């Protein structure tokens, strides 16, 4: 994967649906087009639902990775206001 520069990072560990997506959506809303958001989370369901919802909303999912026993890292580029 090409190197991407993360513009903003949020940690939503401990949150469950729908607040995982609420926090992720509010974070990306405040960013500029082309900027990249990193999300750290530990709620397994959100590691699947956030990428899907972000794509439904027109954003580009660059990375979904389980980084240790409990946590996931998502990397998403803003492509739509």
């Amino acid at each position: 994967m090409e190197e991407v520069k993360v513009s903003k990072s949020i940690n939503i560990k401990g949150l469950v649906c729908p607040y995982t997506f609420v926090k992720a959506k509010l974070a990306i809303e405040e960013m500029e087009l082309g900027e990249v958001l990193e999300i750290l989370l530990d709620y397994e369901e959100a590691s699947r639902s956030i990428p899907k919802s972000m794509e439904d909303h027109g954003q580009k999912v660059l990375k979904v990775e389980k980084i240790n026993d409990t946590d996931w890292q998502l990397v998403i580029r803003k492509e739509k206001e």
Partner: protein
Amino acid sequence: MEFTEDQLQRYSRHIILPEVGGKGQKKLLNAKVFIIGAGGLGCPVGYYLAAAGVGTIGMIDNDTVELSNLQRQIAHSTRTLGMPKIDSAKNTFEALNPDVKVVGIKERISKDNIKDLIKCYDVVVDGSDNFPTRYLVNDACVMLKKPLVSGAILRFEGQVTTILPGDGHCYRCLFEEMPPAGLVPSCQEAGVIGAITGVVGSLQALEVVKLILGKGEVLKNTLLIYDALRTTFRRVKIPKNPDCPVCGSKPTITELQDYDAGYCRL
């Protein structure tokens, strides 16, 4: 303005909608909507707008809560019998959502107060129960260029239309003059099935929300007619009338009038 944790939870189902998001929810919180009437339509409109977090809701009604209202006017209750409807509704809406400020006015709407009352609001909702008020509200909104979401109910039928002055039609483009009193149903004929107020009021509330968000299409140049007995919705095109007496190019109605013709109030 940042959302509080309570607001994130309260509005989470809005925020996750692509058409709303945090930005749309802030628009709702900053919006001011004025509702004419705290009766059959004003109750559900105000209830849903309060739930949606519309920050300021103005409401005018001169009546007190009566037992015969409670079959359809769901913001009031047996406990608020005898209370001014605006106070009863304010209690209900502010209990539902403390983010909402309800400005209640216990007066009858008239040509003398309407412009001052609506001038600071973004959208006007007509939930009145009589033709004189409907024409007065239409004319005032056209003159002040205020978006107006108008609703009406009778028996098992309801109507909704959205008037955007300067853009689409107005109520007088559809019916230039008020029907003579004799053609309007008398009090004995003017029953109304309770739940229709919820259907029509909810449609009005959604028109208001879309206007605030700037999303979707509203009932511009269109009258939506709901027939509850047959469960049908019909859309009727209402072209803007270039010769309309109030919104046409050479208006003949340039001042507000109070119409009083012995109409039955539903």
